[in-house]
């Protein structure tokens, strides 16, 4: 057993020192009748060679971005991942270490996390960001709970154009804390219905949640929504599921958002069948003591040298137990490091150029789609299309051409069963974009 380092002889010596004859004796504290008599119905140990064969065979049962061009986004995006990222996170110093509870021997993780918090603040335009939450869905839930905590109000308006799965996670978290979630409709532009918002929002509301670019890819009317929200003393929670968009778009912070939550997968994290991803959480400075999750702060050591530590721990469960701001303990640390390296690789120019490529390639598709576009609002790299035939059918054709098409909207919006949400990133080629347009509109593209 290559994962164990104790030899039979050493085992003997250790048992002797411990004062028992057989290892089994150490388990005597488990009542006889509870001790397992049978051997586990799990295969015998497989060799490294067999393991690799097996998992490669499983891989061949998948379609993946290795062999297909993806136009599927909807909260998980196929972006370029710089090679250096894996070189950094493959250093065991980073990936095999624990939460930096002992700062003297964890300054690497701590400084990198402090850099992450700063980068997220810069990207979102907010004042403070935490060290990560699980994913976009739970980040939204934590954001709403924080708004409820701070405002001591129980009603929350959530735009229907927020990612449906995020909304489901929010429902799960809110279910038993008597929080009332109300839906906020959208107009034919795809933006939140501002009149409805004005009509619905009140002094009873803790928060209003909108997303931009929203689930339909539409750039929402964030500024106006925030204004209306704050006019009644509610907190504005803005969701971002496509972080790359912030390389180009005015960040929620600049527009006055109180809390920004979102998904950081676009920042160098592989599609990975949905996880591990990266929950982003940022807010205005005045709310920092209400924040969920870990925070790294700057300080000095006993000799006055600058260093970093986990701080404001009194918010957390291991100190405050049932009074904690959240129950989260293990977070997505290594994914935060990935995002830190990604943002550092791209830097000021790169993040902009990347965002522009997404915008321009998507715009090329948008032009080709013409009237098949469902919403009139401005978009970044995703858009909803009215299809000439059943979207699932179209996808089936596309697969044979090495293309994974968009998301049939019927899945979340039964009344939109003929619509497809498509995404274009810098990874998509002109040729395949044209092919997609043809398949969606059954109009031949001639360029």
């Amino acid at each position, binding site marked *: *057993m290559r*994962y164990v380092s104790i*030899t039979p002889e*050493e085992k003997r010596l*250790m048992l002797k020192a411990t004062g*028992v004859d057989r*290892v089994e004796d150490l*388990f005597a504290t*488990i009542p006889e009748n*509870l001790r*397992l008599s049978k051997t*586990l119905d*799990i*295969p*015998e*140990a497989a060799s*490294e060679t067999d393991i690799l064969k097996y*998992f490669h065979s*499983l*891989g*061949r*049962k*998948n*379609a993946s*971005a290795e062999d297909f061009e*993806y136009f599927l986004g909807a909260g*998980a995006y196929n972006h370029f991942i*710089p090679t250096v990222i894996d070189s950094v996170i493959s250093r065991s*110093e*980073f*990936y095999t270490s*624990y939460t930096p509870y*002992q700062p003297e*021997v*964890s*300054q690497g993780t701590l400084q990198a996390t402090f850099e992450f918090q700063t980068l997220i603040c810069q990207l979102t335009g907010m004042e403070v*960001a935490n060290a990560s939450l699980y994913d976009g*869905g*739970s980040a939204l839930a934590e954001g709403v709970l924080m708004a409820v905590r701070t405002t001591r109000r129980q009603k929350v308006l959530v735009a229907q154009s927020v990612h449906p799965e995020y909304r489901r996670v929010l429902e*799960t*978290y809110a279910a038993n*804390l008597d929080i009332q979630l109300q839906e906020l409709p959208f107009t034919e532009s795809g933006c939140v219905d501002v009149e409805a918002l004005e009509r619905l929002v009140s002094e009873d509301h803790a928060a209003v949640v909108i997303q931009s670019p929203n689930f339909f890819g539409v750039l929402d009317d964030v500024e106006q929504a925030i204004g209306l929200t704050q006019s009644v003393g509610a907190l504005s929670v803005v969701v971002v599921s496509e972080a790359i968009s912030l390389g*180009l778009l*005015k960040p929620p912070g600049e527009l006055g958002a109180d809390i920004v939550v979102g998904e950081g997968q676009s920042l160098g994290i592989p599609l*990975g069948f*949905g996880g591990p991803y990266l929950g982003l959480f940022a807010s205005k400075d005045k709310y920092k003591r209400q924040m969920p999750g870990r925070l790294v702060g700057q*300080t000095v050591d006993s000799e006055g040298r600058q*260093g970093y530590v986990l701080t404001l721990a009194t918010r957390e*469960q291991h100190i*405050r137990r049932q009074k904690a701001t959240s*129950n989260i303990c*293990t977070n997505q*640390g290594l994914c935060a490091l990935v995002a830190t390296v990604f*943002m550092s690789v791209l*830097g*000021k120019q790169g993040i902009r150029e*990347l965002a522009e490529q997404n915008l*321009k390639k998507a*715009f090329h598709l948008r032009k080709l789609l013409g009237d098949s576009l469902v919403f009139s609002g*401005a978009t970044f790299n995703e858009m909803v299309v009215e299809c000439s035939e059943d979207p699932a059918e179209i996808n089936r054709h596309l697969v044979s051409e090495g293309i994974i098409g968009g998301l049939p909207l019927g899945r979340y919006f039964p009344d939109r069963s003929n619509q497809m949400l498509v995404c274009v990133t810098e990874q998509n080629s002109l040729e395949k974009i044209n092919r997609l347009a043809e398949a969606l509109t059954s109009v031949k593209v001639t360029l």
Partner: protein
Amino acid sequence: MTRTSVTSILNEPLIFERSAPGKSAYSLPRLDVEDVPVEEILDSKYLRTEVRGFPEVSEVELIRHFTRLSTWNYHIDLGMYPLGSCTMKYNPKLNERVARIPSIALTHPLQEEQHSQGSLEILFRLQECLKELTAMDAVSLQPAGGAQAELIGILMIRAHLTQKGSPRKFVLIPDSAHGTNPASAVLAGYEVISIPSDKKGRIDVKVMAEKMSEEVACLMLTNPNTMGIFETHIEEIAQIVHQKGGLIYMDGANFNALMGYARPGEMGIDVLHLNLHKTFSTPHGGGGPGSGPVVCKEHLAPYLPVPRIEQEGERYRLNSDKPESVGRVHSFHGNFGMAVRALCYILSCGREGLKELSEMAVLSANYIRRRLEGHYELPYDTDILHEVVFSDKKQHKNGVTTQDIAKRLIDYGFHPPTTYFPLIVQGALMIEPTESHSKEELDAFIDAMIAISREARDDPEKVLSAPATAKLTRLDEVRAARSAILRWEP
């Protein structure tokens, strides 16, 4: 600019301080569509001028920056990392390689089932293995960590009880429990009643029985508990709780002590969670990601999060049609990458291997206990399994505390144990070796601990001023919390 250690550059600044206009570490393909100016595509009201503050560095600088930072971390591949309750075992390289196979790492969570059969098989097979290991009936791999699993587990209990009439009001939690337990119970809408431990370090059954009532939804226990002690009265406990119509949630963070020896499903547990990042060797990544499968008995299965992964003949499918489900806790399928690693680990170890792991983990903990009990106070003389908790009582006389002992261990080249937890032990030193270490490494750790106990007696100053060899001396946490500088500013 002085640098004091050759294999570790100690004065690397923040990445922002390395930045200068014109440097770059990225490269992008040339745009192959018409290059329409951004302003012609989007109204300027949508646009920002730049991401102010974003760094600009070259690839060389970037690599050096993070390489230098990395050398400031202690890590498993360097030496023993005996954090109690965290199960810091070796993270096999094979897991990492398998998780990076492109056809496994680059699949989209929303792509059609028929294009995801490989990924679904991984999830399904792992679930089957976990069921067999725990003797439970159903699993969800969706929770991204133990804490989230706790929330889901309690929500499932709540849903179940609600169906039977009332969700009830309270959750019983031993005072030795991990902080996530009460926090999760509250998040699920319950109030917490704390149950004291008896003088053996176990749940005080008498008190528990008194507190148990028709108003109590469940008892949330950890087994073996955070003292490393097996709750020998578990059956009696379960009976008491079940009699009153309550359920039992087991925090399975310490499952590394039980593989092949005992199964929660045979102890009267209704639902539990496992931590793939503990028992099943997925790396801790400096704080995460983890994965907290929630595992339950048949009667709770209907309430598991959706989608569920089901097998139909040769094919696997995602079933979201579970009207009684408590819903989702993750946007997609949870931390899939951790599931890949865990399955790889289980198949690599095999049935005998998994059992051997638990044996060696328990043997190592007991060996440490025996060799150190003369030197450090043992608050409970109860038998233990995979971890041992000492206290600083003996050293306290000389003004040396757990904190000091922990920092001094750093000078001996070891990561400190978990400190000041569980709360029922004053100045707790919680040591979990896991099965990974050689006797040589264990002895080196034990010798260091003994040497420190001597220093505490003969030369306390040495211990009080530790660490002497780390990048930094002790940090001012009060100042950090007061000034709360949470980001770099130009």
